[in-house]
């Protein structure tokens, strides 16, 4: 029997995420030094990198949860994959925007054929399409199955997208060699703190959305029973 009550640990994770993010703000703007060449704009890096990392974790979660759903037919996996995809699209969208601002300041262009950027953009498209698919008016069983299949196929494509973008880039001038190399100790600590803080935020958001999805499904079932 599935419980539909929210776990008491969930608000706790949310509170920890809020406190950790507040601490990160202090570390980003007070503790970490201002970068010499880029100035204050470099601070965007502390948001950009955790967002990009956790969006990749989201898409991995969609993949794993989709396989688990197809194997077990347990609806909690379906709720988890839907929630992780939503958070992943949000995070990768924000990573793209912050990356674009960084690129404009650092390399003078809003967009470049960097394999990481291109892979993030293509994944954003794929998972945005996946979310559209999840809103379709289909029977629940079929929608769950179809979404799980797309969730698996989408993640299988990621390494190939990355490889093809890297090959493609060899015909374009390389705008930069590597980013984030040679960070100072304070900067490195701040980046790690931000990754952990965004991790808490990711867990809180994904957990909440997954719980909401399970409740929405339960309400749907109750509503159908009442009409009958």
């Amino acid at each position, binding site marked *: 029997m599935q419980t539909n009550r929210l776990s008491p640990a969930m608000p706790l994770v949310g509170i920890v995420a809020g406190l950790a993010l507040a601490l990160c703000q202090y570390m980003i703007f007070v503790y970490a030094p201002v970068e010499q060449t880029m100035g204050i704009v470099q601070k965007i890096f502390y948001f950009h990198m955790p967002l990009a990392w956790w969006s990749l974790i989201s898409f991995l979660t969609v993949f794993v949860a989709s396989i688990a759903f*197809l194997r077990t037919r347990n609806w909690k996996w379906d709720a988890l994959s839907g929630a992780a995809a939503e958070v992943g699209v949000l995070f990768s969208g924000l990573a793209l925007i912050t990356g674009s601002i960084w690129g404009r300041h650092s390399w003078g262009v809003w967009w470049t054929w960097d394999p990481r950027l291109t892979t993030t953009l*293509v994944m954003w*498209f*794929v998972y*945005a*399409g*996946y979310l*559209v*698919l999840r809103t*379709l008016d*289909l*029977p629940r*069983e*079929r929608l769950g*199955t*179809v979404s*799980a*299949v*797309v969730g*698996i*196929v*989408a993640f*299988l*494509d990621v390494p*190939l*997208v990355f*490889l*093809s*973008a890297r*090959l*493609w880039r*060899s*015909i374009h001038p390389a705008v930069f060699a590597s980013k984030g190399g040679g960070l100072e100790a304070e900067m490195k600590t701040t980046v790690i703190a931000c990754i952990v803080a965004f991790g808490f935020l990711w867990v809180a958001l994904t957990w909440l959305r997954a719980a909401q999805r399970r409740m929405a499904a339960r309400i749907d079932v109750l509503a159908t029973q009442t009409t009958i």
Partner: protein
Amino acid sequence: MLSAALAIASKDLRLLLSRGTGLVQALLLGLLLIFVFSLSQRVGEVMGPQGAAAIFWLASAFCQVLIFNTLFAIEEANGARFGLLLAPVPVQAVWLGKGIAGFTLLLCAQAVFLPAAIVFLGQTVSPLWHVGLATVLLADVGIVALGALLGALSQGQAARESLLSIVLFPLLVPVLLAGIRVGAAAFADDIPEGVESWLGLVAAFDALFLGAGIVLFPFVYGGEE
């Protein structure tokens, strides 16, 4: 399984080609795309080989969406899908059959798009044409493997075309990039990074999605309305 797949493919091809409407719509859409894109050049101007190859593959991708929608729509009327599902063959035979039929139709369409791209977009054929042709064949295998898998998603669904294209197109990015780069080389004989790595990438794409199709198709092709 192969004979069952061939039987399904030949049934589909006979049904579509005898009606004549299925491929005509896809062909017209692709040709229209090539023609409309040719308007981006000024009179007397010649489009770059990469642009021409990109337009060729765009036309192919749109054409493929229409092909698979038509192929899976055949069984939507009168519950014919249940007939296929009840047949004593593995359900993957349906995927393979639809894939073979889609591959044949896509090649037929590309046989029209290629000369159209050369004529409308002012391209020439370079000594690398055979590599370009091999890439088209190899890329088409991956495209139809994925198309036949995801084409079944839209069963019993309105607004199929738009849904299939937004899910399918981003997934096709690796194979489209390879097709465009090698296609440009086949038009202009210039590919500094070499074709081997691109061909390897397309072969990996084919292998991955042929495997995914075999494993995942039974989940998407079912008896639900």
